[in-house]
């Protein structure tokens, strides 16, 4: 195998660079590490999927980057945006980045909108903060944005409150608010998890359209591999506070290298191929304060060897842009699973 760089070189296409990001939560009696050195980069205009089970640190990564974890969290490592540092830059500069350069939308849109403020006012607030537009001009722009995200009768809807709208509508409002700041990157944290299946598809379509129009980059945090396969250029798989594998989306679904990724793919139903028994990954995700030594996945891994439990496996490139944190990656040969190609279409 050709020697490949283990870290992707920074280029001028690079938007966000995260190196060795750690997060420790101060629980009073003990300090619990939930991120163990995340390396992740986002290029301009790129869509990166972040997948993994709940609690693996997908959301925490981005909350940490934006300084949204609160005083109990201690964040370490480096995160840069366009070459400028993001961690520890102070609230004032950070609040210009939040919403202005990196916007974030969340899982439960209705709970994320202030219940006592009108929809229009909440969009206008972002316009005021990031583009300095106020008054009638702000309302006109807010109307245009709400119209853009597919809210019918936007002018009337602006005077309504979040509880008068459906979850899907509220997620559209969140997207409009995010667009108000004209960000370079939109972090969509499980944007469709709380919504009906039909609404899910509409919201994902909307995100695709909006991205095509604005050219902004997007991080799609999800535990739904199907959603990620359809929408992302590149995918990073997280397990217990580490990125265990990342690769271009097609490659990941065709040639998954980490046993955990393979396990996730094997747990998906295959709609096109022959009927087979769905596999599940044995065991449970360990608690953050009770991680095994070495590879955190070792106790649940079918390919585990003695050396796996000794040290944490380093990140290695198995192909261009395909990085895996598994000591046995490259030695584990097995045919690309039939179901993965179905997912990747």
């Amino acid at each position, binding site marked *: 195998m050709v020697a490949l760089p283990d870290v992707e070189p920074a280029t001028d296409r690079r938007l966000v660079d995260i190196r060795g990001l750690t997060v420790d939560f101060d629980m009073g009696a003990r300090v619990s590490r939930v991120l163990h050195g995340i390396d992740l980069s986002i290029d301009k205009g790129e869509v990166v999927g972040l997948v993994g089970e709940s609690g693996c640190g997908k959301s925490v990564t981005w909350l940490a980057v934006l300084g949204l974890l609160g005083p109990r969290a201690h964040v370490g490592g480096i995160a840069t945006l366009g070459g400028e540092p993001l961690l520890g830059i102070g609230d004032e500069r950070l609040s210009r980045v939040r919403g202005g350069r990196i916007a974030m939308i969340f899982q439960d849109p209705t709970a994320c*909108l202030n219940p006592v403020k009108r929809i229009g006012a909440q969009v206008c607030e972002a316009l005021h903060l990031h583009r300095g537009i106020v008054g009638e001009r702000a309302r006109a722009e807010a109307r245009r944005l709400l119209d853009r995200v597919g809210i019918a009768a936007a002018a009337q809807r602006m005077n309504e409150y979040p509880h008068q709208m459906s979850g899907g509508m509220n997620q559209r409002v969140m997207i409009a608010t*995010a667009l108000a700041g004209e960000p370079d990157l939109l972090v969509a944290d499980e944007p469709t998890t709380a919504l009906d299946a039909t609404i899910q598809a509409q919201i994902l379509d909307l995100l695709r359209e909006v991205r095509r129009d604005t050219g902004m980059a997007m991080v799609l945090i999800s535990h739904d591999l199907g959603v990620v396969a359809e929408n992302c250029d590149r995918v990073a798989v997280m397990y217990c506070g580490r990125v265990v594998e990342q690769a271009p989306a097609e490659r990941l679904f065709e040639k998954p290298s980490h046993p955990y990724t393979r396990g996730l793919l094997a747990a998906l139903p295959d709609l096109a191929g022959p009927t087979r028994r769905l596999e599940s990954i044995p065991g449970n995700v360990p608690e953050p304060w009770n991680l095994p030594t070495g590879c955190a996945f070792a106790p649940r891994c079918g390919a585990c060897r003695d050396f796996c439990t000794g040290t944490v496996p380093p990140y290695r490139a198995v192909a261009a842009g395909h990085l895996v944190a598994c000591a046995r990656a490259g030695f584990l040969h097995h045919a690309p699973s039939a179901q993965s190609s179905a997912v990747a279409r």
Partner: protein
Amino acid sequence: MMRYLAIRGLRAILTIAFVVTFAFFILRLSGDPALLILSPEAPPEAVEAFRKSWGLDRPLWEQYLRYFVAIFEGNLGRSMRDGRPALDLVMDRVPATLMLTLPAFALKLLIGVPAGIFAALRRNSFVDRLVIVCSVAGHSVPSFVLGLVLVLLFAVNLNWLPSGGADNWKHAILPVVTLGTAGAAIIARFTRSAMLEVLGQPYVRAALAKGVPWPSVVWRHALPNAAIPTVTIIGFMVGTLIAGAVVVESVFSWPGVGRMLVVGVANRDLAVVQCVLLLVAMCMVASNFTVDLLYGWIDPRLRAWATGASGH
């Protein structure tokens, strides 16, 4: 909206009627005013004449009906002590009580609300713990104990302030502080827990994520939401402005409505006691109603009349 108001109004009248009825029967079952106001040694003819002149010789149900009819005519009866109309007597005392309860109310708000907000923002800090300790103490020490301690300290030992009476503004300081402390403690506790709950809500994090600076998040996003439970307790306190100082007025011999109530009960001065209780009931009902309207103004989800009327 009209339907909502009608239902609320009807309920308010029922509440007041219930209080009045209750007071009427309890007072009449708990002793004979004739024996208390005249002395027990008074000749039986005098007692009989007194009863007759006040209508106490009639059957209870007839007294009750007459009383109710009189209320609707605006006649709240006369004091059995000096024969003046009960309403006039009570109204004479209202300014004195308000002189204590209004400054105390301001004190409660000025200390309680900021202390609660500040404690919530600095959760688990020294200030937060101090606020919690003070509010538990202020809440659990009965006002007559606190009043007596303050008298002992500032009137007896330090001799800075008078221990009772109502000659000038200095006399009001100790009772106002006594009244205000307990209220401030309660408001601080409510405000703190309301604020803590709101600060944990997803929309607070979402507001930060969209770039709202922290001070604006607190003022414009968190506070209006935290106001809902706090307004409840403040509204309740508004209802006690007229007669919420019964104990404190007694401790400091302050000539207000509360003291009049205590004296009136002791003397079985039926009309006066009933008049005070009617006034209290009306204040409570009015403040509850105001709180309900405020809810709707603060929180669009609670605009009960809006959803009721437009048939959503």
